[in-house]
Structures are given as C-alpha cells and as structure tokens.
C-alpha cells in the first residue's frame, strides 16, 4: 500500500501583522530616544515673557551634575562650538536656533563658556525655561 504524503501549507500568519508592526514601532521609538535629551535630569530656570521656541536641530543641555550634552550625547566644552557649527551647516539666520537647557543652579564658570561657544558657532540662542507665575 502506498501512503500519500500530507502537504502542509507554510505561510506568514496574517493575525500577527499588527504585533509585528507594534514591535517595530517600539524598536524605532527606543532608537530615537538615543538622540533625544528627555531622559536627562535638569530643572529649568523661571523667567517671565516667554515665546515659542520653534523648531530646532540642535539642543545643548547642562544637567544637574554639570555634564554637557549636545543632542543627548555627552561632549566636552572644547568641541562644542565646532560640533554646533557642523550641525547647523549652511542654515540661514532664523533657522539656526539652538535650544539651551541649563540646570537652574549651574554656576557662571560652567554656563558662560557654553553660551559663548553657541554664539561663536553662529547659533540663535533660545533659553528653555519655565514661565514665572507672578
């Protein structure tokens, strides 16, 4: 007697497509957070008369431990101006916004060279602060 082999169909389960898309999304979100500075710890200073910061390609942050970050990556003060200049490229005035996020207790000996470096690189400074309630 000759037995016939049963054919099994192999196909990607369409039921799992949603889960695959979900996992891909989580993956890219985590990847995006690597260049983001939202995980860094700092307390903004409080000032009145604020404006919308607008879109920006560059963000400079000094955290509560006095560490300096450019777009979420820790760097030294000596390379800050050059890196900002590279990041801004040939952007025209008005599109060279640099968001400055400095912890409110940071001392002048730390933040003044940062501000000077941004100014030297031709960036338009926008201090990210909180609205002071009067």
């Amino acid at each position: 007697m000759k037995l016939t082999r049963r054919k099994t169909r192999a196909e990607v389960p369409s039921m799992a497509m949603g889960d695959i898309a979900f996992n891909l999304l989580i993956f890219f979100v985590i990847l995006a957070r690597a260049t983001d500075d939202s995980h860094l710890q700092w307390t903004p200073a409080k000032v009145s008369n604020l404006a919308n910061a607008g879109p920006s390609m560059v963000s400079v942050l000094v955290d509560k431990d006095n560490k300096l970050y450019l777009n979420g990556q820790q760097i030294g003060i000596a390379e800050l101006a050059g890196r900002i200049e590279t990041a801004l490229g040939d952007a025209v005035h008005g599109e060279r916004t640099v968001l400055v996020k400095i912890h409110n207790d940071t001392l002048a000996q730390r933040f003044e060279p940062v501000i000077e470096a941004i100014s030297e690189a031709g960036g338009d400074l926008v201090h990210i602060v909180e609205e002071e309630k009067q």
Partner: protein
Amino acid sequence: MRGRRTKVLVEPPAHATGDIAFNLIVFFLVCASIQPDSGRPQTLPSSETVEEGQQTENIEVAVSRAAVIINGDVTPMNRVFTRLKALLAGKQAPDDRVVVVKSESDTQYSRWLTITSMIEDAGGVVTLQLEEERIVEVP
C-alpha cells in the same frame, strides 16, 4: 412551514485589535512630539564686534551671587529694570545699547538669566565679558 431566522453575531474583528493599538500609539506619539518648548530668545553679538575702546562707554552690569552693580553702583534687585531703562533712554543706535555683563564665577544661571532678561526688556543688547583665564572642567 415557518423558517427560523439565523442570528448574525456582530462583533469587532479580533484580528484588527493589533492595528487599532498601533494607530493609537502613533496618535499619542504625534500628540507628544508636537508639544512646543517655551523659551526666551537671546541675541548675543559676537565678541569681535565689541572693541575695547567702546566698552568703557557702554553700560556695565556686574552680577554676583549677592549683588547687582550697574556702572559701579550697587542696585537693589527691584530697581535694576528702572535704572537700566533710565540709562538706555534716548539711545537709539544698537552699538549704544550694548550692555556689558560681567558675572562672578559663582553666579547661578537662574539669577543671571533674570538679570539679562531685564536688560533685554529695558532695550539693552547683552554682551558677555568673560575672564581671560578660567578653569573649565572637561567631563
């Protein structure tokens, strides 16, 4: 003979729940990313534009942890704005409106920002005067 009506069960398709969750996540991510940052723009002229000779004619503001000194006079915090406004009155040219800010090394950022904001609100153009020799901590 009476025919029996077949009941049709209407329920959301179970296989679409993944897609619904996906779209919800995208929606909340977009909502989160468009939340704008609020800030205070500051225009600083580059250090080369202010010559040494001009600095003596400009208003000088020395900021320390305890005091604000405008052109050599200690000024209470609540009078800084009015004093600056009076000093800048009548000055139209941008070069005349330059206010040189010297900060002690132990001045806090929040204090410095409050004072430089007052200078800008009074119509001044903030220029930093940094010390030539300074110890910078490189992380």
